[in-house]
């Protein structure tokens, strides 16, 4: 029996080498716009993260959220259908690279991401980084949270992950696959605070009923964007134009408010996602 185990080991290394032989380049005929037209649909990445994307348990459809509204608008202006593909914040870029999706909304432009994907110049919307914390936890400043023993939940590889890892490095940071698990960690007492951008926290706070939302100072206010495959100017220009148009016309703000209302939140009580309106 020992002999075949040794041969097994050599055999496995041989097969591994065979896989390394020339292969791949993901066959892409034409840019993203051409592919979309050929396929007849635009594929957007989605993840359970209201108010951006939300799945309806009854029908199994991703049919509500700001990202869905934007996706529908893009699809109809291209004359194609909208297709949703579930990803996580951390795997969205891999999904773009392996051609599982055409665009991922709500990914912020960072230098590291820009090495792997492209971002349009026009912003998608603006928001602030915030925390939903236990009522008795001091969180008015980021320095309050930067203490040993404070436990903060974030979604893995998101902007929150990056920011909190840098500016609250003494705290215990727990990374989860998505928004929902990070909020669940806070709910179950495993974390003292969960850090997301302001809008998803509004949604969470309403459902949980406890905890306080704080935008710790210095406030990290920034633009969000969408990730696209690299070196695809026609598609990038299209996305750029679309974002700029809807932002200037106030449609972006309207879609956001529509979702808040459908969720039972008062748009007047929530900060706007347009810089000019704040």
């Amino acid at each position, binding site marked *: 029996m020992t002999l075949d185990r040794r041969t097994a080991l050599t055999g496995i290394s041989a097969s591994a080498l065979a896989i390394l032989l020339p*292969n791949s380049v993901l066959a892409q005929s034409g840019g993203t716009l051409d592919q979309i037209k050929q396929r007849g649909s635009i594929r957007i990445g989605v993840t359970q993260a209201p108010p951006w994307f939300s799945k309806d348990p009854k029908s199994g459809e991703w049919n509500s959220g700001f990202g869905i509204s934007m996706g529908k608008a893009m699809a109809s202006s291209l004359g194609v259908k909208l297709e949703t593909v579930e990803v996580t914040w951390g795997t969205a*870029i*891999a999904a773009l690279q392996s051609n599982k999706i055409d665009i991922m909304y709500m990914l912020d432009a960072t230098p590291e991401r820009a090495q*792997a994907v492209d971002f349009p110049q026009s912003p998608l919307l603006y928001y602030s980084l915030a925390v939903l914390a236990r009522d008795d936890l001091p969180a008015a400043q980021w320095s309050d949270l930067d203490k040993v023993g404070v436990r903060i939940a974030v979604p893995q590889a998101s902007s929150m992950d990056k920011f909190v890892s840098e500016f609250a490095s003494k705290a215990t940071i*727990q990374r989860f*696959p998505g928004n929902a698990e990070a909020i669940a*960690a806070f709910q179950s*007492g*495993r974390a003292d605070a969960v850090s997301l951008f302001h809008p998803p926290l509004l949604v969470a706070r309403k459902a949980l009923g406890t905890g306080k939302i704080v935008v710790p100072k210095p406030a990290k206010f920034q633009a969000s964007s969408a990730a696209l495959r690299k070196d695809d100017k026609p598609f990038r220009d299209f996305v750029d134009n679309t974002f700029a148009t809807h932002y200037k016309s106030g449609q972006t703000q309207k879609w956001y408010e529509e979702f808040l209302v459908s969720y039972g939140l008062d748009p007047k009580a929530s900060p706007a996602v347009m810089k000019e309106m704040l």
Partner: protein
Amino acid sequence: MYNWDFAPIFANSDVLGMGLLNTLKLTGTALTFGVPLGLSLALLRLSRWRLLSMPAGLLVEFFRTTPPLVQLFWFFFALPILVQVEMTPFVAAAITFSIQSAAFFAEVFRAGIVSIERGQSEAALALGMSGQQAMRRVILPQAVKRMIPAFMERSIELMKTTTLVATVSYADLLFQANELAQKTFRPLEVFTVTALIYFTVIYAASLIVHRLERRLAVSGETTVH
């Protein structure tokens, strides 16, 4: 031609190294608690009093029949709210896998104990030992020797099952691999290396197990199943 680039992996080998350590830590802890717990459950099941044997039986069956990932989610997200206790990811994972492996060990123990010939226990009683003494001095030692191969196989299964914690943010090897893949944007290299690490560790462990099995078989002490 895909551009293989293993450099980011080697640059971050400490990330994967920490993950491997955490995997081993979790496996070790679950085994340490799972084995004695499994023995207690087995003994409870063999007890004559239904009040003891039925709940134990139900617990064992429940944890053997439900998928481990469901158990993990429950212990991770539901239990802390239920008992109002704060738990680190490690504690929640350790509890889940201790109970889960205990359920499987309980069956192995029970089968082992039952497999010792009646004659042994009768002889022990004839020698004047009490039921408990017979169990402790005669039956259990023999049962344990027979069950060692099954134990080791269960332990290797456990090491594979611990990968589930990557989905609930305990920083085991697979979780760290996910982290690395998402930061370096090189999922192919990262997951290939990770698979090879798991294979190496687990294969080595199973080789040791088989060597042990053969030694025990030679000495006539094992029931091959």
